[in-house]
């Protein structure tokens, strides 16, 4: 038996001189990193670097134009939480928004998915149709519903007509301070809930049928099955989406900006719409950046809650 001894190069100079080492380095280190670099550089340029700059910017009084930048420490944050009442209002609206989106679409989606999971014939058709609103652009969805909620020519007016009433349902839902935010949430949900439903349906369909048979043998009715087989079966998806929707609630922008721009009188203002106006219309870039950091902290906080729960042994 021939004994083949290869001396391993140790110093860098030796390594570079060694042909096989060079080839290995090229194949296992250099080329892979060349593959990774373009996307990484774009991502650093668009996300990471501006994110760090955003934190710095939030500590200044920069207007967004010119060279006059003064470091003001945490002044912007102090103003946000202790002086700016409109921010408190916007934050409150975000929390109302979250309360809406953590209940209404989840109930609709769970209920619908449970119904759909049992349907064999036509299931695919339902699935496709119910998913359609989700693929529409926000500009289109908001245009459709702006018309449908028009006080003179919308659904409300038609209902009034039908019942022989006047101006009971035919009101400007989007134009009144008490109903604007909920109307926008309703419209956004029209677009969104089908997506949630599809996720739950997919998750329900991966529950082993045996479990349902076992439940039936134990004399479970449909509610028992849902409660003790379906819900635990989709729990990972359910909780994960709970986290995502909670985060998204702090990022909400499109529908509010397109439908009311935060009005009337700030009634539907959320942090993101306020940030947008501060940074791009009102020359308060530093203040807007601080709001961005606050949104991120909320998002991070929600993620932390879920990570902690998972560490404690929850199956998320």
């Amino acid at each position, binding site marked *: 038996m021939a004994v083949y001894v290869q001396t391993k190069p140790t110093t860098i100079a030796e390594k570079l001189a060694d042909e096989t080492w060079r080839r290995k380095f090229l194949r296992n280190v250099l080329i892979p990193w060349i*593959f990774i670099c373009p*996307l990484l550089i774009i991502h650093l340029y668009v996300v990471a670097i501006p*994110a760090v700059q955003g934190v710095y910017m939030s500590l200044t009084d920069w207007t967004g134009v010119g060279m006059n930048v003064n470091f003001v420490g945490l002044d912007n944050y102090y103003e946000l939480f202790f002086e700016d009442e409109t921010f408190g209002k916007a934050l409150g609206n975000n929390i109302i928004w979250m309360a809406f989106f953590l209940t209404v679409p989840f109930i609709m989606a769970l209920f619908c998915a449970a119904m759909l999971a049992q349907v064999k014939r036509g299931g695919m058709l339902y699935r496709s149709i119910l998913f359609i609103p989700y693929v529409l652009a926000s500009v*289109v969805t908001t245009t459709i519903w702006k018309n449908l909620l028009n006080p003179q020519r919308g659904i409300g007016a038609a209902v009034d007509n039908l019942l022989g009433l006047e101006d009971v349902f035919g009101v400007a839902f989007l134009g009144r301070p008490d109903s604007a935010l909920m109307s926008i949430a309703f419209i956004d949900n029209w677009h969104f809930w089908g997506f949630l439903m599809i996720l739950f349906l997919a998750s329900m369909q991966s529950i082993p*049928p045996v479990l349902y048979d076992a439940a039936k043998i134990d004399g479970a009715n449909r509610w028992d099955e849902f409660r003790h087989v379906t819900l635990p079966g989709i729990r990972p998806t359910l909780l*994960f989406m709970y986290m995502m929707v909670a985060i998204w609630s702090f*990022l909400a922008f499109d529908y509010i900006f*397109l439908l009311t721009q935060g009005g009337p009188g700030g009634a539907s203002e959320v942090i993101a719409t306020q940030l947008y106006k501060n940074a791009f219309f009102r020359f308060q870039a530093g203040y807007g950046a601080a709001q*961005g*950091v606050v949104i991120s902290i909320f998002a991070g906080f929600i993620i932390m809650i879920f990570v902690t729960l998972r560490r404690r042994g929850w199956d998320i």
Partner: protein
Amino acid sequence: MTAIGKVSLRDTVLQRGQSKERSRLLVFNHTVLLFLTAFAVIPLLVLAFNSVKTNLEIGQNPLGPPINIVAENFPNAWERGNFATTMGNSVIYVVATIAAELVLGGLAAYALARKKPPGSDLLMLYFLVASTIPLWMYIVPLFVQINTLKRVGVDARFLLVLVYVAGSAPLTIFLLRSYMLDLPTELEDAARVDGANEFQVLTRIVLPLTKPGFLTVGLVVGLGVWNEFLLALTFIHDPNQFPVTTSFYKFVDRFDRDWALTSAGAIIIIFPVMVLFLALQRQFIEGLAEGGIKT
């Protein structure tokens, strides 16, 4: 990401036999489902109705089916909404973003799935953390950066595509990487033994076998870009470079009372999406279910 399983129609819960009682109860299921279907469809029907009515008829009959069908709203909207330009722009944004995303994402995912160079764990952690950073944290400085580049002559459209590519980079890497990890390595090793280089292994072996992953990413990213509003609003200020979304936003603002015109415009925007959706329903739904955990 693993929390969401693939949709498989064959594995429906009701593979087991249905008793008589069950099928009777399904009447209830269908009632609920039809009601929800109506909720999803009726607003779209009203939109379609209004797009083929005259404004005069919309005034008297704003919700019902049209009595006289007119087609002229579409050429009118196309003309006045400048759709010839903006549809072209949107196609450019979509195609450029998908192409860049798939090429650059494919390369990076392959390196991370197969070669695992030193530092790749750290890189995955970076993308994981970065994917949780909300756009709002960096939009203001990014706006400044992009304006600086625009001022020295860089095309705003190119920069918007970069922003789109970066935005979906984490999702692309996670998805494509997980598809590639599912592949057995033997095939690639066999190709290498036959003398293929890394690039050939990727294009000849890995790419054909992970096509569904690329299709998924392409659809999710493409739909996202076609519908995207906020970033286009923020970074594109020349009307000749507007995508359909921001141009439609201004269009609706201008022709606020002209429902016939705006409805036709809306139909024009959703038409390509609907055609693609109906043709590739399954890929769309599964793709968005799998990878749509964004925006």
